[in-house]
């Protein structure tokens, strides 16, 4: 079959690889009908995630048709249409029982490596480095899905792929980012990043009752989409108005937003060239693994006693974390890889009832064989790219 494989920094290729096989009795094989490139795939592509090897198959946002199931998978059969959550979760460990699926204790065969980097391991993830298990991903014609009796969500309506594909990652991730803010009526929420997760975070914050949603980015087309499609009430172009903390104070009469959401992660940009250069050089020389401008700003901007919610992906260590601001001002910091399994069914309900339509982020539809173009277009934000969907 064809699959998108890592071929070195800034380079993916669609290559012929052996078909996936059932290895365990709780596995299924899914023939992929749609798969997307995630912003976090760019962290792999750019070479910022350790233990990514040439030949690894990328992709953790995918859906398709079940073509084979292991002996112990009783809830699925051939021909079922499913969306696959990006974390791999067994359903029976203490973490899964507490619905903390991205912390599954039994799905990462390389848990020892993750423990060395993070102290404890997390769940295995499709196509996301050998630290998270080395599972081949879904930017391919087919994928092996472990614990298929727990993860995949059956789609029984005739909703098109684009309406439900994002249940695999970005919609639940965005929704959890907003949910962690414990939004009260009248709240002002600020969202850093107007990429696909930022857009859906803004939409989720509105859905959860935020009165005002302010989105911060530097690309006009992305800010326009936030206003016109995601329901943002205000935007800040941080290249035109670089003092974001002051801007936010002014917009909230000195209080600051009730909650601040980082939907950017480890490859942020900073309007001030010298500050960007400081972290960019440290990151390039691997003295620091993150460029954390969004997170620093989110902390400084948040109102006293407010919440900072982090759904942008970080991998290792950051410099100059403003712990003094967070500690002295009684901030709550909440974060996590999304516990997708917990959110898929309720969010499918919201999609079916027309409360949210995540498909508005799709700007590019390409064949799987154009994956390399897709990565380049998305990375460099060419042609007003927001979200790339690949069809095998």
């Amino acid at each position: 079959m064809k699959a998108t494989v890592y071929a070195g920094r800034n380079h993916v290729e669609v290559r012929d690889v052996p078909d996936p096989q059932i290895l365990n009795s709780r596995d299924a094989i899914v023939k992929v009908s749609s798969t997307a490139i995630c912003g976090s795939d760019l962290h792999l592509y750019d070479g910022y995630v350790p233990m990514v090897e040439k030949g690894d198959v990328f992709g953790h946002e995918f859906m398709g048709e079940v073509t084979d199931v292991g002996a112990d998978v009783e809830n699925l059969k051939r021909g079922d249409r499913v969306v696959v959550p990006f974390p791999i979760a067994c359903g029976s460990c203490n973490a899964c029982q507490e619905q903390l699926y991205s912390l599954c204790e039994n799905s990462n065969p390389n848990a020892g490596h993750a423990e060395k980097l993070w102290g404890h391991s997390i769940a295995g993830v499709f196509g996301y480095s050998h630290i998270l298990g080395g599972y081949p991903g879904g930017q391919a014609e087919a994928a092996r899905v472990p614990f298929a009796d727990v993860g995949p969500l059956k789609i029984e309506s005739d909703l098109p792929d684009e309406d439900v594909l994002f249940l695999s990652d970005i919609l639940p991730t965005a929704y959890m980012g907003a949910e962690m803010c414990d939004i009260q009526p009248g709240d002002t929420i600020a969202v850093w990043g107007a990429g696909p997760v930022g857009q859906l975070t803004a939409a989720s914050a509105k859905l959860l009752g935020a009165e005002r949603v302010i989105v911060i980015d530097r690309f006009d087309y992305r800010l326009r989409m936030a206003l016109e499609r995601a329901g943002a009430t205000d935007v800040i172009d941080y290249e035109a108005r670089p003092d974001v903390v002051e801007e936010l104070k002014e917009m909230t009469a000195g209080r600051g937003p009730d909650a601040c959401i980082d939907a950017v992660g480890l490859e942020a940009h900073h309007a001030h060239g010298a500050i960007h250069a400081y972290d960019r050089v440290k990151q390039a020389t691997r003295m620091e693994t993150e460029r954390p401008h969004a997170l620093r700003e989110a902390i400084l901007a948040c109102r006293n006693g407010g919440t900072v919610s982090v759904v942008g992906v970080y991998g290792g260590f950051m410099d100059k974390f403003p712990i003094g601001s967070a500690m002295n001002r009684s901030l709550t910091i909440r974060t996590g890889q999304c516990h997708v399994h917990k959110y898929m069914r309720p969010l499918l309900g919201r999609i079916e009832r027309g409360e949210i339509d995540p498909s508005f982020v799709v700007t590019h539809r390409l064949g799987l064989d154009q994956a390399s173009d897709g990565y380049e277009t998305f990375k460099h934000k060419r042609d007003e790219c927001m979200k790339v969907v690949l069809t095998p």
Partner: protein
Amino acid sequence: MLGRSGPVLGIAVAAAYVAWRLRRDRRPEEAEHVKAAITVRKPRQEVHDFWREHEELHRFVGDGGAVRFVDAPRNRGTEVHVELDRGVPGGKLGEAAAMLSGEGPTEKAKDDLRRFKQMMEAGEVARTDPGQPRPHEEAS
């Protein structure tokens, strides 16, 4: 009275020490005391029985080793504590190399415990190979 012979004596002693260290480090097997523990979300009796039923787990702990099963707090299941002496191929040098590669006896014991937990909780051991799709020429 060291006099002029002092530095020479010093070098001789240092050389003898280095030679002794090298001889010692070249010993192929050196036992390391390993402690490892894991929590399994199953009742203590079930964990105990599963362990006893599996011959390979007796070999894993070895003759001098010990395993204890303790109720975990807050209904989290059972804590499995093992203590054993494991040989390190290549002595101290091997140990240093093992530490860098993450393949030392402690890591190995922890991996074994994780697989035990996976078998008990998930009914299978998490795996990604063989048969994992990747280009033929790119060995993992």
